[in-house]
């Protein structure tokens, strides 16, 4: 639900031209730069929260960050 709310807000900003005076001088790739500012705001908060929660969980479970990252890497890529 949270994701949908964030996405809807972003869509409205773009579709209403809220940022139309920003970055307009840039090359056609400027849209790709602009969108990062929009999603970065939400992604940054989410990332900070996740990192903090991760740190807290590790503190409780007694696992080091390195152990957790190794477990994640093995699970995701299995290289």
């Amino acid at each position, binding site marked *: 639900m949270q994701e949908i709310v964030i996405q809807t807000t972003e869509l409205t900003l773009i579709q209403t031209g809220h940022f139309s005076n920003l970055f307009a001088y840039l090359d056609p790739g400027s849209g790709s730069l602009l969108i990062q500012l929009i999603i970065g705001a939400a992604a940054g908060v989410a*990332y900070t929260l996740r990192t903090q929660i991760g740190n807290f969980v590790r503190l409780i479970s007694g696992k080091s960050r390195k152990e957790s990252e190794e477990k994640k890497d093995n699970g995701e890529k299995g290289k």
Partner: protein
Amino acid sequence: MARKESKEPIGGSFRDPEGFVFQRKGKIYRQINQAGKDNFNLLHSSGLYEHLTNNNWLTPHSQTKQVAAQPKNSYKVIQPEEIFFLSYPYEWSFSQLKDAALLTLDIQEAAIKHGMSLKDASAYNVQFDIESSSPIFIDTLSFELFETEKPWTAYRQFCQHFLAPLALMAYSDQRFLQLMRTNIDGIPLDLAWKILPSKAIFGNGLFTHIYLHAKAQAAYAGSNEKRPTRRISMTLNQHLGILDGLRRSISKLNQRSDLTEWANYYSETNYDDIAFKEKKELVGKYLKLSKAQTVWDVGGNTGEFSRIASQQGLPTISFDIDPNAIEANYILTKQEQSTNILPLVLDLTNPSPNLGWNNEERISIYERKSPDMIFALALIHHMAISNNLPLERLASFFSKLAPWLIIEFVPKSDSQVKRLLSSRTDIFPEYTIEGFKRAFATQFEIKESQEILNSDRTLFLMKRK
């Protein structure tokens, strides 16, 4: 056939003002231009190069005293460790592209933590190391100084080269990866969004990274309004958050499990266990007789016979037309931690051509490193009957590829050929074992041949005349 020697940049490396790749006496070198001096030095002084090469994420390079190809602009020349066989995204399976994407994100995150950033995120900067079956980044000059406040310049390219094709393959069809052939800089995001089914809308961040991204591109493309007064500014956590989001999106995308024509071939073929075992032993025996050092298994399916060569320590490219067979082969290769095998998608009747600017950015499959040996097992009937390719042309084709050939003749009495002929007129009077031998005798000398027990098929070892 190797590419000709040149002082000019090879492949697509001419686009980078900081340097380029060139070839001299069969070896590959990279010239670092004066324009790339600072970034190249930072790559080393920041510890990023050491971190990436220690993890086998980046091809290592050595210093060399080779003269620069274009001395006027040169800062230095390095010799990168060579990749055994170049391959391109439209020749990969789903998981190969996914692993390449995750590697690119890992590298970008590591780069940020070392004060650098990828200035491009092209899928063509990733290759597969045949010894470890792992993706590896090859472009030493892709790194630039990280400026926290600026958005990631390679974000668009990452979405077009990795996220869009992976989403299309996961939600629609694996064959959409072939759009990478016609779109040299990745699949346009608006096109991807048009093709994606509605169920992709609220899943895996695709709405944000593809739909909104495409909308933003369209909204600001070609605009000539006056300069903005506010500055673009990002924080470190915003960068890491976007990377984390992309990683989560890609990790959640999975291959569709549709069955295709070849992925279950071995369970449907008319081989029994004895015939299958004998065929494998014969292939191994013929391979040893040839003393070949490198192998292409064309029509390799899931790599059952390719592994006979790779397990003998011979670098082997295992081609198949079916992306699901290549996916199964790649997954098995990873699970078994196999070495010396590289599964790749290839349609022999429409092989990867020269592509890009001046038809020189992406090299056709036949202009890359040729093998000593071709395996053409359970293939001839598909080429000759399904595709109407005359046997003489097939013989000529194989003789141009390699000096040695292990080929299986599948006669009309075989159930697989009967199936192919069941829905069409038999216009192949020459398709007999005698006609096959006559056609191939124009190019090859038959060194060995043997009928395979409990089947109508015959296996041949041939040497080019």
